[in-house]
C-alpha cells in the first residue's frame, strides 16, 4: 500500500510539473516570436482574453470579472479581447486550448501567466500583483476597499458591542 501511495504522490507531482513546464514553454514561445497584438500598448500591463460567441462561462463569469477589474483599475490595466473564431491563428499561436483563456502580460509586453479556464477577479488581481504590476496606487485602492470591510466586521452589532 505504501508503494502505491508513493506512486500516487509521484504521479501528482509529475502532472503538476508537466503543466507548469508546458505553460512556461508556451509563454516563452510567445515572448520570442513577439506579441503580435496590435491592441497592446507598452507601459501598461494587459490581460489578453480569448473567447468565442458560444462560450457561456465567458459571458457569465469571465466577462463580468474582467469588467469589475476594469471598473476598479480603469486605464491601469488593458483588457484585450480576442474572438478565437475570428482569429483562430492567433489563438493557436498562443496555445489556446479552450475558452475562456486569459494571459497576464506585463507592462513591458512579456507574457507572464496564463489561466486555462475561468479566472476570478481575485485571481487576476493577485496574478498582476505577483508580477509587480498594479503598483502603489492600485494598492491604495485595494486597501480602501478592504479597510472598509475590516471596519464593518469590527463593528458587528450582532455581538452586542455597539
Amino acid at each position: 500500500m505504501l508503494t502505491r501511495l508513493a506512486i500516487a504522490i509521484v504521479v501528482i507531482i509529475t502532472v503538476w510539473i508537466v503543466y507548469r513546464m508546458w505553460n512556461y514553454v508556451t509563454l516563452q514561445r510567445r515572448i520570442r516570436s513577439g506579441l503580435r497584438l496590435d491592441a497592446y500598448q507598452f507601459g501598461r500591463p494587459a490581460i489578453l482574453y480569448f473567447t468565442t460567441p458560444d462560450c457561456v462561462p465567458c459571458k457569465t463569469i469571465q466577462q463580468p470579472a474582467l469588467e469589475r477589474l476594469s471598473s476598479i483599475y480603469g486605464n491601469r490595466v488593458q483588457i484585450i479581447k480576442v474572438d478565437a473564431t475570428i482569429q483562430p491563428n492567433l489563438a493557436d499561436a498562443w496555445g489556446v486550448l479552450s475558452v475562456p483563456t486569459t494571459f497576464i502580460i506585463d507592462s513591458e509586453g512579456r507574457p507572464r501567466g496564463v489561466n486555462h479556464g475561468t479566472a476570478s477577479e481575485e485571481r487576476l488581481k493577485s496574478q498582476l500583483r505577483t508580477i509587480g504590476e498594479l503598483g502603489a496606487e492600485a494598492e491604495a485602492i485595494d486597501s480602501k476597499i478592504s479597510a472598509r470591510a475590516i471596519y464593518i466586521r469590527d463593528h458587528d452589532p450582532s455581538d452586542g458591542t455597539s
Partner: protein
Amino acid sequence: MIHIPVDVFAQIQKNGEEHYPEEGAGLLLGKVHGEKRIVEQVLQLQNRFQPGARHNRYMIEPQDMLLAEEKADELGLEIIGVFHSHPDHPAQPSEYDRERALPWYSYIITKVTDQSAIESRSWRLTDERTFTEEQLQIE
C-alpha cells in the same frame, strides 16, 4: 393608454432600424396622469448587453438609469417606461422579458425586419407579473 407624439414615435422606430440586427433600447420620458400616460421625449441608450448577444438581448445598467433620472429631472419629466426592438421577432414580450420586467413601466416593443420598423405595441406588467397590452395612441 399611452400617448406619444408622432415625431417622438419616429425616433423609437428609427432607433430600432439603426440598431438592426441588434436590439436597440432606450427610456421613455414623460408624465403619468392616473391611467393616462404621455411620452414627451425618449432617451436613446447603449445596449450594454454582451456584444455577440445583442441580436436578442438588451440591457440598461443602473448607472445609466441614474444618469437618465438626472436628465429627466432636468426636463421636469419622469421615466415612465422602456422601448426596445425585436429584430425579426414579434412586437410582444418574451418569457425572458417577463422575468426581468418591472411593474408600472410601459414597455414599447417594436418589431424590426430587414431594417424596417414594422409594428410597435405597448405592454404593462400586472401585479401578478403577467403582461397585458396597453393601448398605444400616436398623435
